[in-house]
């Protein structure tokens, strides 16, 4: 087990170093094969580990009562601050990390495979920097795997930063393009800003825990000491416990300063940590980097900006979830942020032209679903439309949606990549009516759209249904809000689908090839992911991934179907179908309805199309305020006031010496005179004073 765990992290890292250092001595083909094989091995290992975790029944992983446990596979000191604070690098295996291992390695492998075909043009000429691309992919996979298996919050922060950096490198892969460079810069800086909040949150949390914690708090960074209790008699194994979280809350409440600006310090800490999550998961108002990040190669968007990195924020909240449960205020904040973001992103997605932008906003909206789902989770019993809601359902739903979303969103992105590869443009205006030319892409894309729209039996239906149930269990207002967003989701996805594959016949320009389906390296991932998107909904998540390891449903193949809250399910199905129908009416055949809609609500359309001018606002803040009113004045102040003062000292000295140098005229007689006068005066003074 430990060997596999180490290899899961080591193979991508070594692959990065090897491809990065020796890549240019390899042929493109071999670099691609090596990278893909490395990732394939990692994927197999991850599958083994996850399978062992979920199904082996080993006492490290599951106790007699059927509760899933947290197991620390290894944990090495990396940096000791002092006795209660040290950063360790380790490998924590629990339901969510095992699930994430599967997600990341699967998507990553698909993307590795897919890129072999995608990163070439139609004549089979490789992109320049192909080896570099694979090196970066490996680096990203390494960082993301390190992030999800983190045993402590600082390890998570470390890999969090690495993930950000590899995202920067991948977005800026086409470094000669201005837009790619500035998009990568924007992504890095926005997430960096969010990480500042994350860091301060970590510092606050760890300080209180380390300062006031006694006894079993041996390390204030470690997740297991923040949220779990050790299982008696089994080394390195822990059980998630509400008691520990309550104890931590107690530490804060009994401290010398439990409140800060009207909220408890623990809330502050958790909200600041969530801020880090907001940055990575592109929640409003830190979402602006994600649409621009689509400047990167499309496989990168599929891997990083749809399936893995952007859910890191959700994963972070889930990781510390017992603590969040202790502070409903923090959860409410998460809910509000998530709900607003979901609606916003869905509205914007309805008006975008660039297909990757549509998918990007769709991603933002879907991640917001996960956030809301976490935010509405409480452990008290509640009902939704007359049915009882399982305790901690929202958490499970969020993770479930994370899993399914990763699969179908990666599918959609890779499908979009295939389209872009075939057409050479990101705009749907250049596509239209492609269904006959690219049948495989068409079919897989349709499956993706159905999944995201939430049509039974595709994956998205089940997870979204669980989310809505959790929302109903918490608050009807949010539930209806989220249901409306789900309807919008169906609408904009099918708008996209119809505009790409229907609308009107595709015009093939003279001298160009007709668009066609792609080589097998690209098709295979599409087909696999489509298959997963169809069946993933039947994974019995309720028995595998829950917030405290206690299963809430059975583990049969049809469990999800049996446990369906049909009230909510029918509501969400109806809404989704309405959304699809509206999209069909408007976009299936070329017609004037969209134009009329657009003219009927010009302002709304304009605002949505311009993403509610968030970019302009940020542009204003950064360029006018930060650069214009802070940086430039400071630089001016430094050059003119501070430096000016120093120069003024020098100038005064200089002037003074120029002024007195006239005495040194070089005229010997003058010297004599001065000397004589001085001597006589001195003699006179001596005589007068002494005598």
């Amino acid at each position, binding site marked *: 087990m430990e060997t596999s765990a180490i290899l899961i992290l080591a193979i991508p890292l070594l692959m990065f170093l090897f491809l990065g250092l020796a890549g240019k001595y390899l042929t493109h083909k071999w670099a691609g094969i090596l990278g893909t094989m490395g990732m394939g091995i990692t994927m197999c290992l991850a599958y083994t580990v996850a399978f062992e975790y979920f199904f082996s029944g080993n006492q490290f992983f599951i106790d007699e009562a059927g509760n899933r446990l947290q197991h620390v596979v290894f944990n090495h000191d990396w940096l000791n601050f002092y006795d209660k604070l040290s950063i360790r690098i380790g490998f924590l295996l629990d339901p969510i990390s095992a699930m994430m291992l599967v997600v990341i390695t699967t998507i990553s492998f698909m993307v590795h495979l897919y890129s072999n075909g995608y990163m070439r043009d139609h004549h089979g000429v490789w992109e320049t920097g192909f080896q570099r691309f694979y090196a970066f992919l490996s680096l990203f996979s390494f960082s993301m795997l390190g992030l999800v298996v983190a045993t402590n919050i600082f390890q998570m922060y470390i890999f969090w930063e690495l993930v950000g950096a590899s995202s920067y490198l991948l977005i800026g892969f086409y470094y000669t393009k201005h837009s790619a460079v500035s998009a990568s810069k924007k992504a890095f*800086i926005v997430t960096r800003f969010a990480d500042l909040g994350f860091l301060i949150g970590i510092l606050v949390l760890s300080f209180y825990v380390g300062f006031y914690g006694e006894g079993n708090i041996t390390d204030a960074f470690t997740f297991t000491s923040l949220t779990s209790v050790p299982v008696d008699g089994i080394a390195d194994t822990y059980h998630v416990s509400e008691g520990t979280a309550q104890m931590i809350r107690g530490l804060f409440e009994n401290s010398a300063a439990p409140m800060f600006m009207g909220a408890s310090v623990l809330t502050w800490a958790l909200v600041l940590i969530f801020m880090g999550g907001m940055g990575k998961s592109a929640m409003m108002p830190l979402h602006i980097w994600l649409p621009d990040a689509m400047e990167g190669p499309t496989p990168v968007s599929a891997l990083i900006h749809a399936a893995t990195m952007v859910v890191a924020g959700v994963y972070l909240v889930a990781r510390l979830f017992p603590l969040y449960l202790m502070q409903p205020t923090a959860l409410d904040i998460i809910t509000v942020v998530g709900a607003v973001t979901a609606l916003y992103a869905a509205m914007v997605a309805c008006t975008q032209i660039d297909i990757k932008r549509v998918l990007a906003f769709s991603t933002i909206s879907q991640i917001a679903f996960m956030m809301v789902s976490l935010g509405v989770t409480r452990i008290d019993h509640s009902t939704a439309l007359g049915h009882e809601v399982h305790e901690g359902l929202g958490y499970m739903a969020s993770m479930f949606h994370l899993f399914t979303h990763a699969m179908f969103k990666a599918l959609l992105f890779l499908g979009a990549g295939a389209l872009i590869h075939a057409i050479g443009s990101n705009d749907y205006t250049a596509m239209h009516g492609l269904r006959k030319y690219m049948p495989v892409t068409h079919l897989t894309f349709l499956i993706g759209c159905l999944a995201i729209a939430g049509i039974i039996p595709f994956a998205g239906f089940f997870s979204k249904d669980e989310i809505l149930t959790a929302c109903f269990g918490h608050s009807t207002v949010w539930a209806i809000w989220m249901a409306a967003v789900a309807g919008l989701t169906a609408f904009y996805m099918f708008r996209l689908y119809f505009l790409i594959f229907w609308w009107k016949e595709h015009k093939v320009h003279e001298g160009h090839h007709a668009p066609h389906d792609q080589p097998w390296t690209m098709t295979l991932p599409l087909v696999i992911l489509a298959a997963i998107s169809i069946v993933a909904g039947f994974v019995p998540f309720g028995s595998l991934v829950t917030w405290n390891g206690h299963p809430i449903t059975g583990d049969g193949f049809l469990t999800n179907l049996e446990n369906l809250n049909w009230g909510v399910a029918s509501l969400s199905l109806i809404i989704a179908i309405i959304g699809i129908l509206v999209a069909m009416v408007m976009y299936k055949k070329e017609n004037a309805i969209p134009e009329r809609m657009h003219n009927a609500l010009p302002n709304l359309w304009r605002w949505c199309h311009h993403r509610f001018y968030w970019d302009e606002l940020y542009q204003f803040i950064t360029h006018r305020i930060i650069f214009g009113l802070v940086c430039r004045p400071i630089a001016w102040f430094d050059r003119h006031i501070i430096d000016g003062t120093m120069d003024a000292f020098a100038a005064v000295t200089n002037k003074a010496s120029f002024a007195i140098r006239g005495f040194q005229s070089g005229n010997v007689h003058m010297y004599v005179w001065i000397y004589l006068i001085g001597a006589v005066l001195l003699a006179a003074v001596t005589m007068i004073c002494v005598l």
Partner: protein
Amino acid sequence: MLFDNILIYFVLIPLVMLGGVALSRNIKQIRAVAVIGSTALIALSVYLIYQWLNPTPEAAELAAAHDGMYHYASWKWFSAQGLNINLTVGVDGVSIAMLLLSSIILFTGSFASWTIAQPKAFFLWLILLSTGVFGFFITIDLFTMFMFYEVALIPMYLLIGVWGSGNKNYSAMKLTLMLMGGSAFLMLGLIGIYYHSSADGQYTWNLLEIANNNAISTGWQYFLFPMTFVGFGVLGAMFPFHTWSPDGHASAPTAVSMLHAGVLMKLGGYGCFRVAMYLMPQAANDLAWIFLILTGISVVYGAFSACVQTDLKYINAYSSVSHCGLVLFAILMINTTAMTGAIMQMLSHGLMTALFFALIGMIYGRTHTRDITKMGGLMKIMPYLAVCYVIAGMASLGLPGLSGFVAEMTIFVGSFQQGMADYLAGGGSLRLVFTIIACCSIVITAVYILRVVGKLLFGPVQDKHHLELTDATWWERLSTATLIVCVAAIGCFPNFFENLIRGTFDPEIFRAIAMNF
């Protein structure tokens, strides 16, 4: 015996190198002397670390008798008219780290000035400068410390004035005068310390004895602490005495920039800690707030200034102001973790800024401009240098796995602990507030680093002539690769270095101050 002590060789080797360079007849011999000498110095410092990790019982006993100073030895030099000047040497983890840093930078600096004009004179001055640096780090006697300090400063004037570029006379003069101004404060402070070093009239320059006598009255500490702190702080680029740094670095030749930003600026931080804080802990504690404000300003101020510069060296100089501000800031926290972080930051900043200056020098040597608006797309033209630049940038903005992250996180964790502890104990929230302000620098750093990387390395090629430029030569590759390996080594195995350093900040040292962590 003088030559029994290993530390003396840190001064002797550079002196032998001076002789060797003076006798050299062509550039090959000069290079050979520089490379062999600096390799020997690296070997010596590595051996020192080895000895520090596995001390013989006698060595450990000797160290235990001298406040943890290894290889302690003292030779009388001049003793008359009430002046007890000794050459006293001794090293602890911090000095060893600094010695290692200096020897690495000297080694890489020699490669970076492979093709300098008038190599003989250049290397003579450069090695003289490093003699001063090494001497400063091995001595624990105020007088000899000051002497070596001056030896390290003066050659800078000639090195910049003769081999510099741009407005070099102005810059050299400014740098020298401002640093000399700092020295004036420093000398006053040191003499003041000497005359209060002992209660019974047996004055001493020896740091350990002064600390043990603990005879400087609080009133005098209030006077002498600012003197010494500002004196060293000028070299540590403390706001508002930092303005020599942008001009000086901009004009200095590559190796000098490397050595100056990489090592000499560390003399400031090291001196602040070793002299000002160590000898006058009471004043350090009471007056820390003034300097915390100043250094806290340095941190963000330097970073903000760097955001709008267009000259590569100015950007890096302001970035140094920011990073070195963080060093002094952390030292003033008077907390083991933060101070460990400060020394880590010195190591880290020394290596990565040397790397930066080396790369800037190499780029400038090819494009003949340092204006980022006139360059672009260098990644395509000189991929090796560009990749190194990106790595240096990543280290600077604190990417995990490289040294900057480790140092900054140690500082932030330590400062935050101290700040919160102060706050909870009712000691005011100044430390806390400034810690959070300092944390903001990680964002601003990202802004200016990415701005440079984006403009300089990425994007389309700006100037057609640049397309004909070549990538790095083997000596440039060796120089940068060494630095990158060191940066990554610190970043990947921080515990080794932190353990080396942490022992020095035993709370025992700061008897007068209640240390929380």
